[in-house]
C-alpha cells in the first residue's frame, strides 16, 4: 500500500501546473521528487495535503484519497519557510503538534529531544525572529515530524542549510525511514537525491519524465561513463587516441568520460597506461543524476548549481 499520484491535472488560469502527473512511492522509502522551479512539485504536495484541489486525477495513501485522510497523516515542510515571528520556539512546536493532536507534555518532551539532536537546545526559549534562516528551517522540520506522521512531505528541505546541518538532516531522514516513515522530498540538488533516495521521479512542466529506483533511473539514458584520476596532467592528452571517448566533465582531480556505444571502458584505461600516465583512480560509472536530468529535460534543474563544480556522487 503506497502513496500513489495518479494522473494529476491542475491549471492556474492559463498556466498548466500539472499535466497528468503519475508516480508511486513505496511505503518506508526515501523518495526524491526532482524538478526545476515550476515543474509542479509544490502543487503536487499541496494537492496531497488537501490544501489545493486537483482539476483531475487523485493522490491516494493506502488506498484512501489523501484529502479524506486526517491532516496528521502528513508532516509538511513547506518550501517557503515561516514561523510566528514573536512566538517562542518551544511554544510554536507545541502549538503545531497540538493541532495534530499531540498532548502538550509529550510534544514538549519530543520537541526538546529533537532540538538536542539538531544541537539546538539553546533555541527552545528564543523567539523565531531571533533565529537564523538555517535554524528556522530546523525548527520547521521538527514541527513537521513531531506528531510522527506516516508520510513526510518536504519541499526543498536542504536549500539554505550549511554542510553540518545538511548532514544532520540527512541522518534524520534515514532514521525516519528506518522507523518506517515514508519520506518524499523535492529538490533540485541532484547530489543530495543521489545520496539519499531509493527511488526518484524526474518531473518537468507537470509531467513525469522518468521515475523508479535510483539505479534504473541513472541507467535510463543508456549512456556509460568512466571516471578517472591521473597524477600530473589532468587535461588527459592521451585520450585523443581513443575514438568514441569524450570528456564531459573535466576536473583537476577527477574527470568524467563518456563512452560511445561499442567502446569498452578497458580501452580508456589501456590508453592511459600506454601513454605512461599514472592512474590513481578508475571506475566504471552510471551517469550522474544531474546528467540524467539534463539528458531527459534538456536543461539543468538549477542553472547556478550546474555552473558550479558538481560534487562527486558515490558510485
Amino acid at each position, binding site marked *: 500500500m503506497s502513496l500513489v499520484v495518479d494522473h494529476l491535472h491542475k491549471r492556474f488560469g492559463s498556466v498548466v501546473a500539472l499535466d497528468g502527473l503519475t508516480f508511486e512511492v513505496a511505503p518506508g522509502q526515501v523518495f526524491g521528487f526532482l524538478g526545476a522551479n515550476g515543474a509542479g512539485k509544490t502543487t503536487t504536495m499541496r494537492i496531497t495535503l488537501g490544501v489545493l484541489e486537483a482539476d483531475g486525477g487523485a493522490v491516494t495513501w493506502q488506498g484512501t484519497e489523501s484529502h479524506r485522510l486526517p*491532516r496528521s497523516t502528513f508532516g509538511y515542510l513547506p518550501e517557503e519557510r515561516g514561523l510566528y515571528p514573536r512566538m517562542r520556539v518551544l511554544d510554536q512546536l507545541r*502549538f503545531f503538534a497540538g493541532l495534530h493532536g499531540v498532548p502538550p507534555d509529550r510534544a514538549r518532551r519530543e520537541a526538546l529531544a529533537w532540538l538536542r539532536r539538531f544541537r539546538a537546545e539553546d533555541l527552545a526559549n528564543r523567539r523565531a525572529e531571533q533565529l537564523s534562516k538555517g535554524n528556522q528551517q530546523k525548527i520547521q522540520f521538527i514541527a513537521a515530524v513531531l506528531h510522527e506522521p506516516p508520510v513526510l512531505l518536504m519541499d526543498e528541505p536542504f536549500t539554505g542549510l550549511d554542510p553540518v546541518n545538511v548532514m544532520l538532516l540527512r541522518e534524520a531522514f534515514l532514521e525516519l525511514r528506518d522507523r518506517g516513515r515514508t519520506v518524499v522530498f523535492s529538490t533540485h540538488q541532484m547530489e543530495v537525491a543521489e545520496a539519499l533516495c531509493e527511488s526518484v521521479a524526474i518531473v518537468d512542466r507537470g509531467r513525469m519524465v522518468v521515475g523508479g529506483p535510483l539505479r534504473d533511473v541513472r541507467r535510463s539514458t543508456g549512456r556509460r561513463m568512466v571516471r578517472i584520476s591521473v597524477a600530473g596532467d589532468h587535461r588527459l592528452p592521451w585520450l585523443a587516441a581513443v575514438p568514441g571517448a569524450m570528456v564531459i566533465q573535466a576536473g583537476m582531480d577527477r574527470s568524467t568520460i563518456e563512452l560511445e556505444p561499442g567502446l569498452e571502458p578497458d580501452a580508456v584505461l589501456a590508453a592511459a597506461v600506454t601513454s605512461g600516465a599514472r592512474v590513481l583512480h578508475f571506475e566504471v560509472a552510471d551517469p550522474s543524476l544531474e546528467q540524467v536530468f539534463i539528458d531527459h529535460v534538456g536543461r539543468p534543474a538549477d542553472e547556478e548549481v550546474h555552473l558550479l563544480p558538481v560534487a562527486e556522487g558515490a558510485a
Partner: protein
Amino acid sequence: MITAHARRNVWLVARREFAERTKARAFVFSTLLLAGLAVVVALIPLGVRLADKATILRVAVTSTEPGLAATAIGTMDGFLNAQTSSGTGGSKVFDFVPYPDETTAAQSVRDGKLVAAMSIDRGADGGLGFTVFNIGALGSDKAQLLQVGAFAVGVLDWTRSNPGATRPFVTPSFSVVDAGSSAGNAGQPAFDAADYASRRIVGIVFVVLSFLTLVFYGLWVASGVVAEKSSRVMEMLISAATASQLVVGKIVGIGLAGLSQVTLVLIPAVLTMLLSGRIGDALLGPDAGTGATLSALSPGLLVAFMVYFVLGFGLYAALYAGAGSLLSREEDLQTVALPLSIPAVAGYFPAVLALSGSTSGVIRIASYIPLWSPFVMMSRLAVGKVEPWELALSIGLLVVTVPLVTLLAIRVYRAGVVMYGQPPSPRTFWRAIRGG
C-alpha cells in the same frame, strides 16, 4: 459535523490568538487610551449638570383671572430665583413670560420656544389650580421648584384675597401634563429630560463603542491573516488544520481579546459614572433629577450590547478574515482597510440619527439589516422606542447571517491563503468564492 478534534483545534488557534493579542504592547496602550477616553465620556453628565445650573428656563404663565398671571410671575420670580441664588451664587433659574392664553402657550411649548407653560385657574372653593404643560424638557427637579413657587403664590393669594381669613386656606393643586409634540406622538409617555439626556449619552457611548470595536477588532482579524500569509507560517498552518478551524479559531480568539478589552474599558467608565453622581451631589448639592445619570444604563441594555457585540463581531470578523486571506503583504491591508470600513460607516449615520429619537422608515430598516443593526438597534434601544418583534427580527437576522457569511469567508480563505501576488480585486474575490 464538529468533531472533538476540530473543537480542540479551534480552541488551540483561539488561545494562541488571544495570547498574542493581549500580550502585545499595542493592546496595553490601546486599552489604556480607550479606558481614559471612556472615563472622559462618563464625566459628561457631570459637566452637563454643571452647565445645567447656568441654564435659564423660559416658562409661560397664563391665567383665566385677569391680573393673576402678573401677580404670580412677580411672586415666583422673587421667590424661586432668589431661593436658588442663595445656594449657588445668584444664577437665575426661570424666566417667566406672560402669555395671553393657554392654547398659544402650549403651542409655543410644542414648538420648543418654551420649556413649559403654567396655566393658573381658580376653583369653586377659591383655591388655585396650577397646570404645567411640557414635552419632557422640564426635569423633575425643576418641576418640584415650580410646585414650591405655586404654593407660595397660593399662600399670598389667600392672604390678599380675603384679609379677614373667612375662607379656609386651600392647598393649590399642581399637576404636570404632557403637552404632546407637534409631530403628533402625544399620549406616548414623555421622558423626563434628565432621563432622556442620560439615554442619549448612554446611546452615544454604545454606538461609538460598537462602531470602533467592530471595525478595530475586524482589522485585527484581517491583519492577523495577512501576517500569517506574509510570514509564510500559513503554509504550515493550513497543512496542520482546516480552513474552517483556522477561521473560526481566529474569530473566537480575537473576539475574546476584544471582549476583554471592552470590559477593561467599560468597568472604569461605569465606576466613574456611578461616582460622578456622588461627586456632583457633593459639589452641587443633592439633585433629584440628575440622579438618573445611570438610569438609562439598564442591565437589559448591557445584555443587548453584549449580544450585538458578539454577533456583530462574528459578522465583521468573518468579512475581514475573508478579505485578509486575499492579500499577500501587510502593506496591502492599508489599501483595503478603508473600503472595508465603508459598510460600518454607512451604519454609523443612521445610528446617530436614531439617537435623536427618530424612527423614520430608513432608520427602522437599518436597525434590522445585519451589517448595521449592531449600531442602529443599540442606538434605538438606548433611546427606547423598540417593539419586541423588531428586536427579535434584528437579532434573528444576525443569527442567520453570521454562520452564512462565515461559511463564505471560509471558502474565500481556503482559496485565498495559497494565492500569492495577485492584487486584490473584485474578480479575485469572485474567483475565490466560486472556486472554493
